[in-house]
């Protein structure tokens, strides 16, 4: 085998900033070869990003690095600043997570793309401008000559990230490190960026390290995988091997806790407990406190296992009981003890819907000028209708800016509806006065996305959960302190935690506290706004299971708002897809995922990376062009038509009606609704 481009041996990184040494990376080895994509996957705190910064020598001064990193034969850990600087941009290019902050807001894009090369003296400043335009063209920026002179705020998120790719590629480096390159992007934009990245990688033959928490992205793009946990690589191997025959209990757990878009209906099997904080790393194998195999075995708590070869060539696992891990199926997925409502089947009229939303509109005026006159309207929600019955889950999905959160907040009465109506249990609650709305809120509650932001930091969690009871003057009536303790146990928390502050809890625990608060008043409807989006995969499964258990026990109705199509498929009975303030398609879950009729749904579903490398070659992907338009200036006719592969002349002229499609439960709003035609796929896919 050829000499690897990057070779890492025994890498240790510790941070000494807080007075004592906190290990972040604890002895890892790996190689990356030319023309290869190595995926490094791990949850927060696993040390994956620190590894990437160590390779480029960009760690802060408080980091202590030992071990060896050789890039193209040059040792990096001992290199002086000037060598490191020359290496960056020439030998290594980096792509970072959030394209809104990785570009300098006050310099033109073109200059930022090429300035590294100018600084390295590899291109004269006269030729630089032209080269920058070429680089932007290579990453499919339309009208690159004009765009090169623009500033980052004039670019959309996807375009910015493509410009960052152009920047990383500008010196034709042999190694590219992409650290969560698509995490901040919408799924259709992620598809664009990943396809550009893959194409440029193939064209240049560079080695790529792709760091991500998203197993789907790994399965889609990587050739080899390294799974990190607690600062170590716990398993590594070819991507097909890792996904088909994982040999480390953590990898197995991770794959089991992941909701799948391709259909599996079983209950998720979460990994118990929390990922370890670097400052409090467990002894021995860092995973042992959470491990179904090693939890009670003394050797796992005493001795850190080495990474040893197992099975196929290149496959290695750091587990004392790797053989057992493969066969032990201690906690196989149980089938979901559901559904409560026969899936998809329209309930007979006997039971009226709990929530009925009819033609809801929420418009925000754009004001400008001295007199704050209205010069335009943001049509955040523009005619949304939906029904929700008791005990049922309706998933509301869409990309950022589609109006799903606005819809949820307007239903909750947190925003004023501009038009249409919301009825709860037969009573019209649209824009009720505050006092009347209060009574309704006993029965419907809201759960927020960010569990860190939704709990009042200066109150104890006991106070926070009791707050709704106090607000409604029901604290004593509903059982006082005893009720609070019950709620804590209901969501799986200990009552001894009542007098702690939110900052003392992890993300998953905080989300449980948010759920306990929402349940305090015994509501019948929960509106969940991205409730698991901020959580690590293993924790996400715990919260999803909790939500499903609570729904069954308390016969709750859920309006589940999310961007993650896999999670939505897992938890919902019915699903509605939103685009630019409207529902474009709504159906029973299986119909929508198996037989989508709207081109947008079809593109969305095809863009989701599936954590199954085996299906990679079989799947065809529709890569949508362009970005989501602003809801302040929605396109005429069908709002999707400028990006649609089926659009004809009528689509720009006439807004399609939302109508039932033949042969199923589906309703969609498209002039050309229908199953995906293979020929279209062939044309659109790259």
């Amino acid at each position, binding site marked *: 085998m050829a000499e690897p481009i990057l070779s890492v041996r025994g890498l240790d990184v510790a941070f000494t900033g807080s007075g004592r040494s906190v290990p972040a990376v604890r002895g890892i080895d790996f190689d990356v070869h030319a023309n290869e994509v190595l995926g490094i996957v791990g949850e927060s705190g696993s040390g994956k990003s620190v590894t990437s910064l160590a390779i480029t020598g960009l760690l802060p001064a408080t980091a202590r690095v030992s071990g060896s990193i050789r890039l193209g034969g040059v040792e990096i850990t001992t290199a002086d600043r000037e060598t490191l600087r020359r290496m960056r941009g020439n030998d290594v290019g980096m792509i*970072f997570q959030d394209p809104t902050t990785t570009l300098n807001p006050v310099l033109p894009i073109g200059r930022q793309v090429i300035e590294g090369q100018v600084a390295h003296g590899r291109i004269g400043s006269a030729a630089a401008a032209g080269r920058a335009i070429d680089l932007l063209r290579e990453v499919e920026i339309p009208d690159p000559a004009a765009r090169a002179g623009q500033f980052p705020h004039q670019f959309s998120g996807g375009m910015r990230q493509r410009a960052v790719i152009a920047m990383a590629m500008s010196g034709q480096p042999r190694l590219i490190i992409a650290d969560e390159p698509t995490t901040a992007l919408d799924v259709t934009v992620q598809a664009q960026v990943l396809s550009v990245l893959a194409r440029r990688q193939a064209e240049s033959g560079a080695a790529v390290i792709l760091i991500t928490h998203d197993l789907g992205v790994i399965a889609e793009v990587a050739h080899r995988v390294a799974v990190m946990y607690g600062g170590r690589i716990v398993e590594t191997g070819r991507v097909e091997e890792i996904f088909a025959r994982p040999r480390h209990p953590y990898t197995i757990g991770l794959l089991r806790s992941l909701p799948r878009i391709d259909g599996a209906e079983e209950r998720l099997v979460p990994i118990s407990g929390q990922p370890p904080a670097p400052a409090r790393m467990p002894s021995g194998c860092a995973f042992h406190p959470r491990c179904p195999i090693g939890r009670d075995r003394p050797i796992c708590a005493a001795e850190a296992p080495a990474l040893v070869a197992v099975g196929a060539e290149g496959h290695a696992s750091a587990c004392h009981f790797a053989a057992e891990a493969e066969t032990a199926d201690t906690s196989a997925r149980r089938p979901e003890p559901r559904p409560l409502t026969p899936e998809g089947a329209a309930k007979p009229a006997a039971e009226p819907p709990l929530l009925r939303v009819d033609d809801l509109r929420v418009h925000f005026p754009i004001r400008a000028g001295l007199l704050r006159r209205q010069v335009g309207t943001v049509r955040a929600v523009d005619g949304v209708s939906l029904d929700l019955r008791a005990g049922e889950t309706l998933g509301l999905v869409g990309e950022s800016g589609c109006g799903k959160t606005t819809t949820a907040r307007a239903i909750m009465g947190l925003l004023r509806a501009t038009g249409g109506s919301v009825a709860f249990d037969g009573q019209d609650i649209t824009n009720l006065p505050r006092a009347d709305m209060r009574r309704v809120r006993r029965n419907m509650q809201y759960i927020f996305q960010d569990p860190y932001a939704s709990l009042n930091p200066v109150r104890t969690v006991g106070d926070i959960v009791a707050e709704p009871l106090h607000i409604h003057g029901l604290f004593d009536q509903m059982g006082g302190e005893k009720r609070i303790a019950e709620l804590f146990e209901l969501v799986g928390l200990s009552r001894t935690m009542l007098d702690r502050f939110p900052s003392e809890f992890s993300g998953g625990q905080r989300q449980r506290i948010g759920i306990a608060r929402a349940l305090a008043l015994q509501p019948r409807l929960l509106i969940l706004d991205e409730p698991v989006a901020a959580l690590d995969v293993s924790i996400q499964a715990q919260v999803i299971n909790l939500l499903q258990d609570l729904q069954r026990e308390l016969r709750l109705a859920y309006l589940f708002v999310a961007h993650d199509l896999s999670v939505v498929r897992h938890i919902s009975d019915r699903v509605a897809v939103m685009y630019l303030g409207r529902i474009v398609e709504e159906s029973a879950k299986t119909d929508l995922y198996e037989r989508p009729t709207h081109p947008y749904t079809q593109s969305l579903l095809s863009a989701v990376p599936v954590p199954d490398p085996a299906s990679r070659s079989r799947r065809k992907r529709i890569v949508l062009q362009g970005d989501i338009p602003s809801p302040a200036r929605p396109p005429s006719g069908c709002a999707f038509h400028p990006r649609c592969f089926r659009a004809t002349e009528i689509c720009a002229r006439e807004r399609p009606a939302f109508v039932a499609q033949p042969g199923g439960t589906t309703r969609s709003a498209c002039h050309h609704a229908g199953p995906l035609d293979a020929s279209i796929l062939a044309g659109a896919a790259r």
Partner: protein
Amino acid sequence: MTGYIVRRLLQLLPVLLLASLGIWAMIYAVPGGPVASIVGENANPEQIREVTQRLGLDRPVLVQYWAWLTSALTGDLGASLHAREPVLHLIMQRVPATLQLGFCATLVGLLLGIPVAIASAIWPGSWIDRTLSGWSALALGVPTFWLGILLILLFSVELRWLPSASAYVSFFDSPLQALRNTAMPALTLGTYVSGIFARFLRASLLSELKADYVRTARSKGLPERDVVGRHVMRNALLPFVTIVGLMLANFIGGTVVTEAVFTYPGLGRLLIQAIGSRDYPLIQGCILFILVIYVLMNLLVDVLYAYIDPRIEYR
């Protein structure tokens, strides 16, 4: 752009109107009202009647304000009670002195403040940073009037290099004499301003240095000099320009204390003298003048900021 300026001007209108109303009403709040302020509190009824009629104080209040405002707009700020001269004339005599002091002090502040800020931001937490941060704390904490006294003690009483009372000599007439007279007040005020500049610029440099784009710039292999010089400085200097502009605006009236220490004949001294002699038309005139200039300078700073920051579109 023009539209933006016009709109900002119109936004300032209510502020200016309200403030001018306050300044005009000042005189009515004085014990004894405007008449007593002119004739004194022990005047006989005839004097009072005479002054009341002469000043039109028997007219409705709003009419009086309108008359005062319209004449102020044409530059007629009335006459000083003591100097018997038009107020505007007295003010304009003092403006060049104040401007010269303000510019010199800002210059001193920039020369002292910017290097201090950059040095301490590049090595945060180091002994250099701690020393320099101590310097800016001192520059801000030592009252200008006390610092002025110390400088006089050193340069005038002990060394006898500089005059303890500064006169106004224009730089254009006699640069050397101007320097002798302006050096101490400018140094006093400049030291204080350098503290503000250093602290603000250090903070904004530090927060910019933490920004993601700095990591990006380093990952391209830019030398640290370019990372700081091209990327960080440009972002940090944008808000800094605002601070410098506001400081200049502040100096139109804010050099009062320094002028008092060095008996420097600027606008501030005029105002103190006016307050001391209860010369109300002069007080009103000075304050109104300073107010208008201050507000206009603020506007100018806003416009300048919108002009240099590519992110702001003046629609």
